[in-house]
């Protein structure tokens, strides 16, 4: 067996490919070959390390040094300095020291534990970090009902948006007698500012796959689908590879581990519709229809894909499962808060010093996340608002920054935790502009099934445009809230219902931004 003295893991995901990580990967390999170091130093691709604004990043193990903003020109010097002379190339070392959790903090992670530590395209890497041990344990040592009980006891709640208790959801389906049950993993991530599922699938597809497998076994399904949006080409590629490797290793297919249990996993591709993130609309799309949500009840757990019992879970939810099975429900319950156990992936974007991702315990305050992980506001910026939860989220002003990020605490504000998107805005941003962008988004994504949402969004859009043109008065703001309230109470699904929170939080907390437009126009007219 080959022993390497160093391992360079260069993050290769859709974000870093943008910045040239593939070319740098090739250049590193070439340079090591030139220097005859390929027997001692190995270069691998890995998932996201967690920084968005630092160019191409790589981590060197076991030194735990993170290099950032790598360019092709840097490669010869990097190899020479770090690996030949044994000197850290300080000018390229990660400057944002606030993120000292990269990479040592990965140990505290659950869902993104392996992202930045292993090569996602090699099943052996995954096996090397206890990969598929949970699957083996579940299939050989536990009955399906027992798995459901463990997940119930762990308190795991859905990470897609609603936060419904996962084990409870499973129990609705596991108790039904049916030869034809299905599991669908919702990877149709469309919430603006959200790409945590992409990071999970690019960084650790095997963990998602293992979670899917355990879920299927627990509820009694023999087919599982991963429904992924059509734009996520790299994810699709990595998942296809992972699925094939799993079949090759006998982890999927017929009579797995000689237990008589069969399981097939398929990828299903979306075609561009945010509304298909709603579980019944997703199922409609899988059946080759327009993505209109269905009436609930019956819930998918009773009658879902082709009217068979179907469990629909979010990517992040399911990626928690292997660790829960391996380490037990009690271990999971002790992380986070009593009502919201576990961790949550957040993507911090906008006017912060260190845009990036972090996976922290539930209950961490928003202020901590922005300061400790986001590095606080970028130089010269003052915090104004954070849009939490994507377009279907809430504008959080300065006064609310100490809110704890967990289901229970956010529910007090009627907000949902869901996507984990945190978009930080400084004083230069006009919230009315952001609200217009949000309403445009919903107007584009409304499916058209119900009039409150399709006409309501159009009316809201007309209102905000009128305000920005200075052609309305203050009463228009009240009108907008009334329309959003009507949409909240009468829309058929959560898409139309979610306008109220974001409209209200924008208008109530940042009324001045709207009035500015009206005042400016008045000034112009006068």
């Amino acid at each position, binding site marked *: 067996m080959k022993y390497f003295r160093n391992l360079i893991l260069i993050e290769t995901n*859709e*974000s870093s*490919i*943008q*910045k040239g990580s593939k070319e740098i990967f090739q250049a590193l390999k070439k340079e090591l070959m030139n220097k005859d170091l390929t027997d001692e130093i190995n270069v691998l691709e890995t998932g996201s390390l967690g920084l*968005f*604004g630092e160019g191409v990043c790589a981590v060197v193990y076991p030194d735990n040094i993170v290099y950032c903003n790598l360019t092709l020109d840097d490669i010869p010097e990097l190899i020479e300095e770090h690996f030949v002379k044994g000197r850290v190339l300080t000018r390229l070392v990660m400057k944002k020291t606030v993120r000292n959790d990269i990479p040592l903090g990965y140990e505290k992670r659950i869902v993104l534990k392996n992202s930045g530590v292993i090569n996602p395209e090699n099943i052996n890497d995954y096996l090397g970090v206890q990969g598929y041990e949970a699957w083996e344990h579940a299939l050989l040592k536990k009955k399906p009902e027992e798995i459901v009980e463990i997940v119930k006891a762990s308190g795991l709640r859905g990470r897609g948006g609603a936060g419904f208790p996962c084990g409870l959801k499973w129990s609705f389906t596991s108790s039904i007698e049916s030869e034809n049950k299905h599991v669908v993993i919702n990877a149709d*991530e*469309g*919430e*603006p*500012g*959200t*790409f945590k599922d*992409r990071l999970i699938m690019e960084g650790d597809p095997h963990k998602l796959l293992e979670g899917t497998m355990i879920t299927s076994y627990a509820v009694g399904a023999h087919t599982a689908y991963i429904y992924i*949006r*059509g*734009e*996520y*080409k790299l994810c699709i590629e990595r998942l296809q590879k992972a699925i094939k490797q799993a079949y090759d290793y006998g982890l999927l297919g017929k009579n797995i581990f000689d237990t008589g249990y069969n399981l097939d996993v398929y990828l*299903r*591709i*979306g*075609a*561009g*519709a*945010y509304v298909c993130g709603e579980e019944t609309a997703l199922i409609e*799309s*899988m*059946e*080759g*229809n*327009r*993505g209109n949500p269905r009436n609930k009840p019956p819930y998918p757990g009773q009658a879902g894909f*082709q009217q068979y019992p179907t469990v629909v879970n979010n990517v992040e939810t399911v990626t928690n499962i292997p660790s829960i099975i391996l380490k037990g429900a009690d271990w999971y319950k002790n992380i986070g808060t009593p009502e919201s156990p576990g961790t949550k992936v957040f*993507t911090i*974007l*906008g006017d912060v010093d260190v*845009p*990036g991702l972090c996976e922290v315990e539930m209950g961490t305050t928003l202020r901590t996340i922005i300061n400790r992980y986001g590095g606080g506001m970028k130089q010269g910026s003052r915090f104004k608002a954070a*849009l939490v939860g994507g*377009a279907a989220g809430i504008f959080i002003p300065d006064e609310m920054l100490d809110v704890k990020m967990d289901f229970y605490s956010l529910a007090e504000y009627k907000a949902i935790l869901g996507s984990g*998107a945190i*978009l930080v*805005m400084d004083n230069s*941003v006009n919230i009315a*502009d*952001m609200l217009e*962008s*949000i309403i*445009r*988004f919903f107007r*584009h*994504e409304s*499916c058209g099934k119900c009039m409150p949402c399709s006409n309501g969004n159009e009316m809201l859009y007309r209102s905000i445009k009128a305000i920005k043109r200075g052609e309305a008065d203050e009463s228009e703001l009240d009108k907008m809230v009334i329309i959003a309230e009507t949409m909240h109470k009468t829309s058929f699904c959560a898409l139309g219902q979610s306008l109220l929170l974001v409209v209200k939080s924008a208008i109530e907390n940042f009324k001045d931004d709207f009035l500015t437009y009206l005042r400016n126009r008045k000034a112009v007219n006068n």
Partner: protein
Amino acid sequence: MYKDICQKYTPTKDNLIYILHDIQDSHPQNYVSEEAVEEVADYLKIPVNHIYGVLTFYTMYSTKPRGKYVIRLCESPPCYLRGSTNILKKLKELLKIKAGETTTNGLFTLELCACLGLCGNAPVMMINNDFYGDLNDDKVENIINKLQETEV
């Protein structure tokens, strides 16, 4: 004409989305024609109107011919915050078309789209299957010029 593509899938309605993706990707003008719809209707034994309804619902499909390169610029809040409006202006300037239109030489179609899930690199656009992020005026000009050069 599309028999080969259709026959890669079993003739059930569930496979409609994927067949349509494949047909669109195989066409140099990135769309699904009326003839294609008739063939698919025949193969899957479903009505034409159902397929048309599906095609017009999902944003990735087009029932009208588009350019060789379909540019989809994200205008969702995170990209908006990072100046997607300016990128749109630049693209309109370079290509001399409005959003929803195709250049007269049939090379580029410009579309606005919703969040592509690459918000860490905002502002972002996709051209066919490729992402382009961290956009600014110069970068956009380089990308467009490069694509135009490969055509000559």
